[in-house]
């Protein structure tokens, strides 16, 4: 404890500067965390949060009982890995090109356009996907017809939907993520570039040996940040594109959609919280582990 007070006195200003933020999280994040306790109770209005009956792990049963949990967990992780890696790599590529290409007007316009999908709500994405792939009048099937090909019944086959979902997720986040990498590139000192140019490095070499290494910390950071949510999933994306179509669940069901369906008729706050807790604990263990590994190899890349 003495260490702490010493440190506090030494860095008074720094503490003061971060104090509002710490208070904010204490109030808006840590205080409501008492709600985690809902996961272990059978809720009643008379009892409220702490007066309701404690039932141990019973609220978790619906996840384990049906035997689908492993499959759901796997699906969710695979989808999120695809989102994270494909998304980040594409954003990285875009940022590099946007920073290195000549043509101010071209860059500004394309960058703005890439941001447009961010504003398209998933409701609209859902309507849009249906219009593309529906059997009657669907854009894709109309095109197939015009090419003299037989129509394809997208909604009776599960195979294409993985790709459709990943595509739209990446599509929606492209502009947003690119900005982060772009800002990181902008903070790279010009000196490196100049020095490399004098050494006769061509643009590919400069990207390979200067830009990419400088972006690695950002890349790792973003991956780490995303890993914590690996079991939480983009509910709106899946729900708006797949909806209640049981035909397609086999390859498109994630934990969030499964829980939503299970509790849609009779919502239960205990079971809902239990599912969320499972997702959080899983993500927590994953992040702490990965972070520890990174800390061992390259300390300054670690998240905490």
């Amino acid at each position, binding site marked *: *404890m003495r*260490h*702490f007070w010493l440190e506090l006195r030494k860095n008074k200003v720094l503490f003061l500067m971060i104090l509002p933020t*710490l*208070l904010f999280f*204490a*109030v808006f994040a*840590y*205080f409501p965390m008492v709600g985690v306790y809902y996961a272990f109770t*059978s*809720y*009643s*209005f*008379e009892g*409220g949060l702490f007066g309701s009956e404690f039932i141990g792990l*019973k*609220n978790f*049963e*619906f996840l384990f*009982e*049906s*035997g689908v949990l492993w499959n759901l967990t796997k699906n969710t992780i695979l989808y999120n890995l695809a989102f994270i890696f494909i998304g980040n790599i594409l954003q990285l590529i875009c940022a590099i090109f946007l920073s290195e290409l000549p043509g101010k007007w071209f860059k500004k316009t394309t960058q703005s356009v890439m941001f447009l999908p961010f504003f398209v709500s998933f409701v609209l994405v*859902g*309507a849009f996907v*249906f219009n593309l*792939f*529906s*059997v*009657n009048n669907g854009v894709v099937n109309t095109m197939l017809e015009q090419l003299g090909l037989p129509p394809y*019944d*997208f*909604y*009776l086959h599960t195979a294409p939907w993985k790709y459709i979902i990943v595509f739209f997720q990446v599509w929606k986040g492209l502009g947003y993520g690119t900005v982060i990498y772009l800002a990181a590139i902008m903070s790279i000192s010009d000196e490196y570039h100049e020095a490399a140019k004098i050494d006769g490095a061509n643009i590919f070499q400069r990207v390979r040996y200067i830009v990419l290494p400088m972006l690695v910390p950002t890349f790792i950071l973003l991956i780490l940040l995303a890993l914590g949510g690996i079991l939480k999933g983009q509910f709106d994306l899946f729900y708006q594109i*797949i*909806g*209640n*179509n*049981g*035909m*397609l*669940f086999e390859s498109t*069901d994630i934990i969030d959609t*499964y829980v939503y*369906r*299970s*509790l*849609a*008729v*009779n*919502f*239960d*706050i205990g*079971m809902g919280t239990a599912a969320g807790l499972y997702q959080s604990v899983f993500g927590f263990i994953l992040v702490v582990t990965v972070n520890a590994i990174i800390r061992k190899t390259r300390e300054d890349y670690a998240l905490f």
Partner: protein
Amino acid sequence: MYNKRTKVSYFLTALLLLAVFLSACTNKANEGSNPKGEASPSSGNAGGPSGKPDTSKKVELVWYLLGDPHPDTEKVVAEWNKMLEKELNTTVKLNFTSWNDWQTKYNLLLTSGEKIDMIFASTWADYYKFASQGAFMPLDELLPVYAPETWSKVPKQDWVEATVKGKIYAVPATYPEYTPDGLVYREDWRKELGLPEITDLDSLEAYLDGVKKAKPDVTPINGKAWNEAYTLFKAYHGYEQIGGDSGVVVARSYDTPRDIIAYPFTDEFEAWVKRMKTWADKGFWTSDSLSSQKEAGDAIRTGNGAVYWRNAPGAGGFIVGLKETNPEIEMGYFPFTRFHHYAMPTLSVNNAMAIPKSAANPERSLMVLDKLRNDPKHYDLMTYGIEGTHYSIAEDGKSIVPPASAKNNKDWKKYDIASWGWRIESNSREKQASGWEGFDKLLEEFKSISKPNIFAPVLLDYKPVKSQQAAVNQVFQQYGQPLMMGLVPDVDKALEVFRKQLKAAGVDDIVEYVKTEANKHFDEKGIN
């Protein structure tokens, strides 16, 4: 080791901060509620010497309705408050949940214990569940004192339907309705193609088939067809769900309420899904129907659809609306009550007003509701808006028409809020089913075959079997719906999978649970 200690000390500080903050907050919250506490239930209970409740203290109530306000709601409520202030020394702040995500919000309002003096309640907003879990205040003792007129005027049976575990938790609207499911369909096409009148499942099938064959551009049920298929399924077999939505667990028929089964295991179900497979293959609906967000009714409007699921008043609304936009289309209606020749009136608590447990002024709130329901001046204002601005009384002295000022005003919008909770038939100035001329005859038909609704009031909260219930609901969506829509390639195999999954999810436990609870309820009410 050292690292760990810093982390621990760090968390200690955080906890300290939290504790300081919390104590500050709770103090504030306590201070805030104290003055209100004086005016709350116990002390306000006593009537004055004349036996009239004491209204000497000015009170502002908070009321919540579903949906959204009309642009003029603020003006209307201001008018109302003038009246209330004079008569009851009270004003009401009328809030709306808006339709946006209203279930979540409704749940939050009740769970968080926010100070609300009255809120809309309904069977379709989980009235029974909330009431049995203690979200509402019991009204038995308050009603005779603070809402005497309502207490005496509401029919006995309506109070019974609002009773949960022996207590009344809501004031039901007094507006008897029949809302059986049915299908609206293009009657003009039926005539044009010389198809038989729709009276049963076979003639319905013949109609769908005839339309599909004669009009290749039309998908008879075009859009999401699940509601059509599912309500038809239940009504055709006469299955009755128990205590609201009981999923695959049903009473086999109205006459055998204690014969409770999980229908996917019956032979009828097998025959049905095979038949639905032929319907889907014939193209009565599209293969993407389960993902479609399109309403089949919209397709009727554009000429690509023929059939749409509606309850009887809803059918009236749809048909009347269509007459305005597409006068060339003639529609018919087939109510599913004709399969088994009985109709059940909706429960009184289909629309009601309840007082949350957290209310500060339940007595005053009931007094206001009593006025609102029974004083036509209050009722008209809050239901139809301001006379002369939003409506005028028609020549018959009863019904309402748009006011003269509306004729030249393009922006005029009929006053309309979700006033269902205090609706009273005798005060109503509008006809049911938006004045669809076919409705009166239909209503006669329903009344003549009316049987009391014995299933909805069975109280089920599924607590002992909630994980099974969740799993079964999930299985139903994943395997049941595609099967019942005839979309699976191999019916026999899909049926086997569905049944197996249901068993694994614990459907038998639910059947057992529902049986026990229902029998208990039936014993109590003397139903066999």
